[in-house]
């Protein structure tokens, strides 16, 4: 089941990764549980980009945790823990994917369609101006139903844009990190992001106008 949850945010924010890692090095099982709860879904999702099946992605993620347990004492904190973890994962996922003969579906012709282009007249000006999304803001934050809608929309994106939007906008990695993790150029990351964001924006707009996309 997919759902939106605030999890740890409800209780005054997350425990910092570096504190959890220090506890993990001391053999604290609760710290391990907290870290895997935080990152395992992301690992499986990113691994799935490289390997043939969900089961295979879960195996790769599990191997990654073994590597983390073996190597965490050597983690020097020069990158964030998340970046370090994802690089371990992707190295393993690439090897597994290559063994499986997986062909990654890089389709850069993917586009958001003509929904947005129809909004402009022959001169390239808006036929009808976009309206600010003020009604989805509650207490300075985007409200939960809209976040759920955005989540749905991300899930419906084709594989490559889904991976790009997830890593960049959901996980907050830099464009450079995303390009490196997914083996695509930064220019392509930017193009894909532009299209993905614009598609999600259109979905929010349609929802606010009471339509179904």
């Amino acid at each position, binding site marked *: 089941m997919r759902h939106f949850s605030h999890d740890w945010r409800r209780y005054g924010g997350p425990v910092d990764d570096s504190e959890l890692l220090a506890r993990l090095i001391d053999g604290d099982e609760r710290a391990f549980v907290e870290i*895997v709860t935080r990152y395992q879904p992301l690992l499986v999702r990113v691994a799935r980009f490289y390997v043939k099946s969900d089961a295979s992605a879960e195996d790769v993620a599990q191997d990654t945790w073994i590597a983390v347990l073996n190597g965490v004492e050597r983690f020097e904190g020069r990158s964030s823990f998340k970046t370090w973890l994802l690089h371990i994962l992707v190295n393993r996922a690439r090897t597994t994917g290559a063994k499986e003969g997986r062909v990654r579906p890089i389709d850069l012709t993917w586009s958001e369609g003509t929904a947005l282009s129809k909004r*402009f007249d022959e001169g390239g000006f808006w036929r009808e101006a976009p309206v600010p999304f003020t009604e989805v803001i509650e207490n300075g934050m*985007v409200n939960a139903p809209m976040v759920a809608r955005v989540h749905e929309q991300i899930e419906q994106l084709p594989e490559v844009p889904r991976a790009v939007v997830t890593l960049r906008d959901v996980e907050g990695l830099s464009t450079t990190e995303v390009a490196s993790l997914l083996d695509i150029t930064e220019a392509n990351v930017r193009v894909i992001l532009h299209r993905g964001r*614009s598609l999600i924006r259109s979905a929010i707009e349609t929802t606010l106008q009471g339509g179904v996309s």
Partner: protein
Amino acid sequence: MRVLPHALVCQEAVDLVSDYVDGTLSRRDRRRLEKHLANCDACTAYVEQIRMTIAASGMVRHDDLSPEALETLTDLFRRFNDER
């Protein structure tokens, strides 16, 4: 002779917005876009919509870990700890 770029129309402006909010536009394109935005409320609203879209994506949480997956990983941790 330096060729001056033509002024952007809205449809061209929106194509630059994603890079603009990420700060990855070239200085030249940023200037062109900002010049357009200064006179275009519609595109300014679009920029805000894209910012809000990104903010909403940043609030998406992944699926929770299933109890079975958590148990498998916890077992892995216990075996690792026993062996070291």
